[in-house]
C-alpha cells in the first residue's frame, strides 16, 4: 500500500496521533497517587541514615500514642513473610550458585544501605505519620561501610555475614573459550587495552513510586495499586514468595504510570508493606515516595568497572576480546539484578563484529549501597560502551579511520543468520547500510569545514561514532530457564470481539509512555480492516488481563504484539468459518479485506459486523461444529531475541578554557525492522538519546566512602534539561525485518540509551586530539567540565 494510504487508514506504518494524550493533556490521567480510597491511612517509612549498622533497639511507644497513629510497624510484624525474591539465579564459572541474601520487608538486625527501611508509621494523615516518625527512637551501632568493589572482594567487612563473602558470583563466559582467547592474545599483532567505569545512574522516572494496599475482609481479596511496569510479575513475586497470597485473592493494578525505564520492573518492599498492612489494619494504606526517598530506594543502574582488551592481527582484523568487570549489586539482589551484568551483557560483547573468540569475566559484588538493577538498556549499554570505546581507541593507536576499522570487521550482510561466539544468533542486520546512512545524515563530509569554523571561535569540535547491537524480547522461556530465569518470558493477549464488531484487546504488556493504546490498535485495525477507533486496548490490571510478563527490554511489540497478532489470527480464522456459513461457501474461499468478507471468484460479501453479530445472535450459525461468540486468547513465546542495531554520530564542541562539552549535533540511523508508528518510534529514540547523553555528560550517582549518597536530589544529580540538547536527527529506514516474529519488529525503546554514550565520549576524545591533547586516552562518564579540563592538563 502506498504510504499516504496507510497513513489515512491509521494502520501499520501510520504516524497516528496518540489517543492517550487527550487525558494526559487535560489533567485527567489516573496515576497511582491520584487514587484515594475512602478510609485510607498513610504510611511513612523511617529509613536508615547510615550505610551499614546493627540495630540495637527500636522504641515506638511514644509515637504509637501520638494523634492519628494507627500502628508503628517493625520487622517483628513481618516474621511470617518471605524474603523479597530475586528472579534470576546465576551459576558461576565453577558451577556454583550465586550467593543469595535474605531481603526482608523491613530491616532485620542490620541496616545495609542509606534508605534501608527500619520502621513504618501508619496514621490517619501523612503529616501525622511524619510527625510521629520523629518520636520513634532507633539506636544503631554504625559499622564500616563496604563501598569499594575490589576491596570488598578482597576481604574485610561483610554486607551479609551469613554469606561469608561479598562476592555474589564470579561468572565466566564462554568459559570453554578462555584458553583459546589467551592463545589469540599471545599471537596478536596489536593489543588495545582500556580501563573504564560505567557510572552509576538513577532512573528517575518523573512519577515517584506509589503503592496503595486494600483488603476486603468478607472475600479475603487483596488489592495493590502500584506504579509498576508489570503488574502480573508483582502479583507473582509478592503473592507467591513474600506474602503467600494465592493469585485469585490478589489483584495488582498499575494504572497510568509516569515512566519506568526499568526502575518500576522490580518488586519493592513498600508494595508488600502496604498490602500486608492493609490486611492487618483492615483499612486501605497508601504510600507515596518523595523524590528524596526515590533516590535511596529505587534500584540504581549500571555501576560497572571494567578492563577490556582487543587483539588484532597484522591486517587489523579483530581476533579476540576479553573483559574483566566488577558489577555492583548493592546491598540486596533486586529482581533481575544478576542477569544484567551477565546474560544481558556478556552475550552482546561481539557487538557488530566478527571477533571469533570472546571471554567475559564478571564479578558481582555486594556493597552498602542501594540495589542495582536494570536501567534502560540493562547490560547492553555497558557492553556497547566498552566495545565502542575500545574500537575507537584501537583505530587511534593503529592510525586508521574509526569508520574503516569498523567496516572491515563488521559482520557482513550475507553472513546472517550469524552465530556469535557468545551464544546468541543474530537473525538479520545490515551494519554497512546503517553506517552509510549515518555518514549521509551527519554530513560527515562537511565535518572538517565545521571544525574549522568552530576553531575560528576558539572551540574544539569533535565527531564521535558508535555502532551498537542490542537484544530485545528476552526469550525463549526454556532457554532463559536454563540460564537462571525463575520465570517464563512469554506474553499473552485476549481479543474480545463484541457483537457490534468493536474490539477490546486485553494485553499483558504495560504502557507507561510507550503509547500501546494507539499502536496496538493500529495493528489490529490493519489485520481486520476496521477503523482503529473501533478498537480499545486494556492493560495494567491482573483482574481483567490474561497472564502477562509486562514491559521492559523493548519487548512490548515484539512479544506482546506478537501474542496479540496470534489471538487476532484465531479470531479471523473463526470469523471466516462463520462467514463461510453465512454465504454458503467453502471456508478456504473466504477472504477478509477492509473489514469485508468475500468469496473468491464471486460477488458475494458479508461485512465484519454481519459476522460478529451472527457470532453473538447465532440464529443462522453452524452451532453443531462452532461455538458462538468471538473471543480468543493466545500466548506467544519467541524463538529468539530480536537484534536492533544502528550507527550513531555525535558532534561536540569543547570549550578548552573550561572543559565544557556541548552536543551540537546528534544523528541516529537505526534498524528496528518494521515500524508500526514512526512518530512514536522516533519519540522513543529521542528519549533514549537524552538519557544516554545525560549519562555521558551530566548524570552521576555518587556515594562518599561512608556510604552517604552525595547526589540524593535534583540539586546534586544533574538531570538533563531542555537546553542540554540540540534537535536530534533520527532515521529508521535501513530496516531488516526480524525473521522470527509475525510483525517483523525488533524493539526501539532502549537503542538511544545504548548507542549514544560511547558516541559522545568518542566525540569528546576526537575534539581533544584535534586540539592537540593527544595524551588523553579516555575520560570517564560523566565528562563534566572539571573532568575534561583536568584531562587536558598534562
Amino acid at each position: 500500500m502506498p504510504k499516504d494510504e496507510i497513513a489515512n487508514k491509521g494502520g501499520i506504518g501510520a504516524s497516528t496521533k496518540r489517543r492517550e494524550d487527550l487525558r494526559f493533556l487535560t489533567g485527567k490521567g489516573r496515576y497511582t497517587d491520584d487514587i484515594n480510597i475512602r478510609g485510607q491511612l498513610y504510611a511513612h517509612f523511617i529509613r536508615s541514615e547510615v550505610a551499614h549498622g546493627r540495630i540495637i533497639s527500636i522504641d515506638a511507644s511514644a509515637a504509637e500514642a501520638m494523634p492519628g497513629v494507627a500502628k508503628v510497624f517493625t520487622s517483628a510484624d513481618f516474621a511470617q513473610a518471605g524474603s523479597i525474591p530475586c528472579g534470576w539465579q546465576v551459576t558461576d564459572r565453577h558451577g556454583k550458585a550465586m550467593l543469595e541474601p535474605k531481603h526482608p520487608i523491613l530491616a532485620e538486625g542490620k541496616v545495609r544501605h542509606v534508605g534501608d527501611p527500619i520502621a513504618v508509621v501508619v496514621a490517619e494523615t501523612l503529616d501525622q505519620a511524619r510527625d510521629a516518625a520523629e518520636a520513634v527512637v532507633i539506636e544503631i551501632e554504625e559499622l564500616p561501610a563496604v563501598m569499594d568493589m575490589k576491596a570488598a572482594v578482597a576481604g574485610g567487612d561483610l554486607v551479609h555475614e551469613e554469606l561469608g563473602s561479598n562476592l555474589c558470583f564470579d561468572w565466566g563466559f564462554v568459559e570453554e573459550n578462555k584458553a583459546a582467547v589467551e592463545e589469540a592474545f599471545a599471537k596478536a599483532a596489536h593489543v588495545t587495552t582500556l580501563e573504564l567505569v560505567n557510572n552509576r545512574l538513577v532512573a528517575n522516572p518523573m512519577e515517584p513510586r506509589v503503592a496503595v494496599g486494600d483488603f476486603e475482609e468478607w472475600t479475603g481479596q487483596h488489592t495493590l495499586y502500584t506504579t509498576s511496569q508489570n503488574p502480573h510479575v508483582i502479583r507473582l513475586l509478592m503473592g507467591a514468595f513474600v506474602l503467600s497470597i494465592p493469585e485469585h485473592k490478589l489483584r495488582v493494578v498499575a494504572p497510568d504510570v509516569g515512566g519506568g525505564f526499568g526502575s518500576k520492573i522490580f518488586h519493592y518492599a513498600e508494595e508488600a508493606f502496604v498490602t500486608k498492612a492493609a490486611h492487618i489494619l483492615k483499612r486501605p494504606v497508601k504510600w507515596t515516595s518523595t523524590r528524596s526517598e526515590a533516590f535511596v530506594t529505587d534500584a540504581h543502574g549500571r555501576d560497572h568497572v571494567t578492563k577490556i582488551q582487543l587483539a588484532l592481527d597484522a591486517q587489523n582484523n579483530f581476533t579476540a576480546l576479553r573483559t574483566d568487570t566488577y558489577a555492583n549489586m548493592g546491598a540486596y539482589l533486586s529482581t533481575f539484578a544478576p542477569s544484567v551484568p551477565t546474560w544481558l551483557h556478556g552475550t552482546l560483547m561481539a557487538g557488530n563484529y566478527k571477533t571469533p573468540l570472546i571471554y567475559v569475566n564478571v564479578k558481582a559484588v555486594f556493597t552498602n549501597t542501594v540495589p542495582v538493577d536494570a536501567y534502560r538498556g540493562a547490560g547492553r549499554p555497558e557492553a556497547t560502551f566498552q566495545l565502542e570505546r575500545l574500537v575507537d581507541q584501537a583505530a587511534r593507536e593503529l592510525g586508521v579511520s574509526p569508520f574503516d576499522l569498523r567496516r572491515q570487521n563488521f559482520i557482513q550482510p550475507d553472513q546472517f543468520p550469524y552465530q556469535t561466539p557468545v551464544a546468541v544468533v543474530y537473525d538479520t542486520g545490515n551494519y554497512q547500510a546503517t553506517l552509510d546512512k549515518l555518514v549521509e545524515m551527519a554530513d560527515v563530509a562537511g565535518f572538517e569545514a565545521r571544525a574549522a569554523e568552530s576553531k575560528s571561535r576558539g572551540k574544539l569540535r569533535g565527531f564521535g561514532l558508535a555502532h551498537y547491537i542490542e537484544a530485545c524480547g528476552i526469550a525463549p522461556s526454556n532457554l532463559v530457564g536454563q540460564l537462571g530465569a525463575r520465570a517464563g518470558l512469554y506474553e499473552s493477549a485476549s481479543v474480545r470481539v463484541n457483537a457490534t464488531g468493536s474490539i477490546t484487546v486485553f494485553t499483558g504488556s504495560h504502557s507507561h509512555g510507550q503509547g500501546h493504546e494507539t499502536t496496538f490498535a493500529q495493528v489490529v485495525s490493519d489485520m481486520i480492516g476496521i477503523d482503529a477507533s473501533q478498537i480499545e486496548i486494556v492493560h495494567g490490571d491482573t483482574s481483567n488481563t490474561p497472564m502477562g510478563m509486562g514491559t521492559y527490554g523493548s519487548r512490548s511489540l515484539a512479544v506482546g504484539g506478537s501474542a496479540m497478532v496470534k489471538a487476532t489470527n484465531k479470531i479471523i480464522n473463526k470469523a471466516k468459518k462463520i462467514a463461510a456459513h453465512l454465504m454458503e461457501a467453502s471456508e478456504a474461499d473466504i477472504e477478509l479485506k477492509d473489514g469485508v468478507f468475500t468469496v473468491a471468484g464471486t460477488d458475494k460479501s458479508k461485512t465484519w459486523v454481519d459476522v460478529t453479530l451472527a457470532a453473538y445472535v447465532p440464529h443462522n450459525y453452524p452451532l453443531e461444529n462452532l461455538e458462538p461468540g468471538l473471543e480468543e486468547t493466545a500466548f506467544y513465546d519467541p524463538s529468539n531475541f530480536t537484534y536492533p542495531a544502528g550507527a550513531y554520530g555525535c558532534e561536540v564542541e569543547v570549550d578548552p578554557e573550561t572543559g565544557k562539552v556541548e552536543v551540537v549535533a546528534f544523528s541516529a540511523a537505526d534498524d528496528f525492522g518494521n515500524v508500526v508508528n514512526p512518530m512514536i518510534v522516533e519519540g522513543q529514540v529521542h528519549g533514549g538519546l537524552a538519557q544516554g547523553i545525560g549519562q555521558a555528560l551530566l548524570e552521576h550517582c555518587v556515594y562518599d566512602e561512608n556510604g552517604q549518597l552525595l547526589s540524593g536530589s535534583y540539586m546534586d544529580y544533574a538531570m538533563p534539561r531542555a537546553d542540554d540538547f540540540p534537535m536530534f536527527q533520527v532515521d529508521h529506514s535501513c530496516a531488516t525485518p526480524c525473521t522470527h516474529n509475525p510483525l517483523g519488529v525488533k524493539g526501539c525503546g532502549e537503542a538511544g540509551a545504548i548507542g549514544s554514550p560511547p558516541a559522545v565520549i568518542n566525540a569528546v576524545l576526537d575534539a581533544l586530539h584535534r586540539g592537540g591533547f593527544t595524551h588523553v586516552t579516555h575520560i570517564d562518564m560523566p565528562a563534566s567540565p572539571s573532568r575534561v579540563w583536568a584531562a587536558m592538563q598534562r
Partner: protein
Amino acid sequence: MTKVTMTVNGKAVSAETEGRTLLVQFLREGAGLTGTHVGCDTSQCGACTVHVNGQAVKSCTIFAQDVAGAEVRTIEGMAHADGSLNPLQQAFNDCHGLQCGFCTPGMVMASAALLANNPRPTEAEIRHGLEGNICRCTGYHNIVKAVLQASGQTDTQGVAAE
C-alpha cells in the same frame, strides 16, 4: 486549621489548611484536581507548575495560605469550554510532545506562560524557558516542536512539522 478560599479555573474553591499546606496539596487534595503533579521535593522538576494570577509558579514551593484569594489556573482549566484541546495542547498532541504524561501538565502550563511573555520564541528561547521543567521521556525534541507549532512557527525552522 484555617479555611482558605481561592479561584481555581474560574470557580471558588475552599479547603481547610495548615500553615504548612502547600498549594499543590490544596489543589490535589482540597480541590480534587489531580492533574497537577509532584515530581520532586526540591523545587526542581516543574511537574507542579500552575498559573497564579497569570504567572507560572511551582505550586510545591508556595503555601496555600499565602495565595488565599488568588486566581489559579491548572491544567484542568486549559481546554476550550467544549472540552476540545486549546492550540498549545493540540500542538503537544500533534508533535508527540508527551509520552508518560507525568511532566505534561507542568510543561503545558510553563509553555503557556512562556508564550504569553514571548509569542514567537526561538528554539533556544524555548529550551531556555523550559529549563525549570524536567521531562525524562521525550528528550525535549518534540516538546520544543510543539511550542514552535503553537507559536505559529510551524515551518520556519524546518523542525516543527515533518
